[in-house]
């Protein structure tokens, strides 16, 4: 049996992603990316049993089927074709965890383009669903490459608006906006500060605050007395390794 001391960084990040969904109850848990995907399923398999989640194609599986195993049997509890996802977005019963090529201190996210959007240096994914997600329901982010190139002073394009943009917009447009947490390969970050600036919620075991500060191009709030990200429990490690991600697909996101 595994012991918590043997948990590796990918497993710590899976648990940190799972924790983003704590308290969500009966909503659509919609992680994007392998580590968030395993995390969402872990949350549901443990402390948030009422979550529903997609197979990323068109159904909601009720069982804890693994990632990286294409023919794993699914117990289908409902049908969610692509169009229905938007209906759910607008209903608010959803918490998405997206990636971010860039994020700033207010939680503005860019997945659209690097450089001037008119003729970008690098065209990325585009706006995708980020603008609608942020103004309709809770959003979190997964960023496996924490550096000054990704945690930036100012994002090139605002795909998902952060707290400064929402403050400017004001009520009632901002009433469904929440950036719950950002999980990186170095730590966990949130916006639970007086002015909703990003702070360090915890740093992963083996990471120092200096390392995080150095890899971040803006000033992080509350960098004293920083907590350590919790380790996976024995049960969580078992679920991650044997049930939810037996092929270790999650490890590919760490480069």
């Amino acid at each position, binding site marked *: 049996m595994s012991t918590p001391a043997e948990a590796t960084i990918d497993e710590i990040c899976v648990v940190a992603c799972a924790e983003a969904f704590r308290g969500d109850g009966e909503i659509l848990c919609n992680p994007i990316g392998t580590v968030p995907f395993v995390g969402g399923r872990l949350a549901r398999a443990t402390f948030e049993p009422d979550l529903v989640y997609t197979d990323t194609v068109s159904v909601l599986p009720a069982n804890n089927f693994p990632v990286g195993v294409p023919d794993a049997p699914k117990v289908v509890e409902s049908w969610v074709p692509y169009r229905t996802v938007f209906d759910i977005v607008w209903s608010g019963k959803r918490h998405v965890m997206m990636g971010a090529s860039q994020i700033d201190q207010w939680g503005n996210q860019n997945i659209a383009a690097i450089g001037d959007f008119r003729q970008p240096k690098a065209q990325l994914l585009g706006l995708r669903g980020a603008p609608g997600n942020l103004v309709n329901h809770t959003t979190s982010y997964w960023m496996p490459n924490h550096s000054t190139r990704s945690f930036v002073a100012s994002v090139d394009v605002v795909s998902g608006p952060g707290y400064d943009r929402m403050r400017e917009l004001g009520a009632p*447009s901002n009433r469904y906006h929440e950036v719950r947490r950002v999980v990186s390969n170095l730590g966990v970050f949130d916006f639970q500060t007086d002015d909703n600036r990003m702070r360090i919620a915890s740093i992963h075991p083996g990471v120092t605050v200096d390392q995080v500060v150095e890899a971040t191009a803006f000033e992080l709030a509350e960098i004293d007395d920083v907590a350590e990200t919790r380790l996976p429990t024995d049960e969580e490690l078992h679920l991650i390794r044997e049930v939810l991600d037996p092929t270790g697909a999650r490890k590919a996101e760490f480069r």
Partner: protein
Amino acid sequence: MVDKRMTEDEVISELKDGMTIGIGGWGSRRKPMSLVRAILRSDLKDLTVVAYGGPDIGLLCAAGKLRRAVYGFVSLDTIPLEPHFRQARQSGAIEFTELDEGAFYLGLLAAAHRVPFYPTRAGLGSDMLIMNPELRTVTSPYDDGEELVAIPAFKLDAALIHMNRADAAGNGQFLGPDLYFDDLFAMAADKTYLSTEKIVPTENLLDEGPVHTLRIQRIFTDGVVEAPHGAHFTECPPDYGRDEAFQREYAATARDPEAWEAFRSTYLDASSHEDYLKALEARS
């Protein structure tokens, strides 16, 4: 019932330079590729394409057919970024309208319902309104007075969609897990051309799927093209999955002009869908 059967080239002969054309499917899924290839080998130019984009937009970019792309994303699914589309954006070769994916749905819906716009919260606070200065907001006429983004109707001159089955009159059936937005494309367009894996007699439409798979009504279609394997290399379940090896070969041509020319002469210059299928068969 009227017989709307026609060939790919007959469809293309009804299209004109500068038209706005909607293309159904989603990413690299159930795209009307035999019709897209027919555009590629035609003289058509300056097109505006409206799509949940995949290799349709990529190929049209690579062949210089596009003036503007209207999209929420352009992706090959297993290859997240469409390489030819990226190149076109980064070289400034095309104009673009990039929208939130859900807002995009509302643009189709508004055109289908013949209203000027549908309101949504999506876009407030993000750069969507900066990237698209022509977008306007509306204020709710009710007591709440909320300001919302008015997504304008995507009026389409023509739409191209691909169905698993259809009859000769243009009733279309999807047998896979998702219709995507193909019914809205059909309703939003002045003319809709439907390609299908197989044309079946109307009385056989329920042989392979239940009644709720009959989602394209003939009142919204103007032409039916029988094109077995017509969505290749995108997926068309349950008839076939994506040809990932072919898609990788296609994607690699974006980095290498010689590879693109070879790909083009082998597959895209094929004078018909039948010849394309023969070229596929000859593939080692």
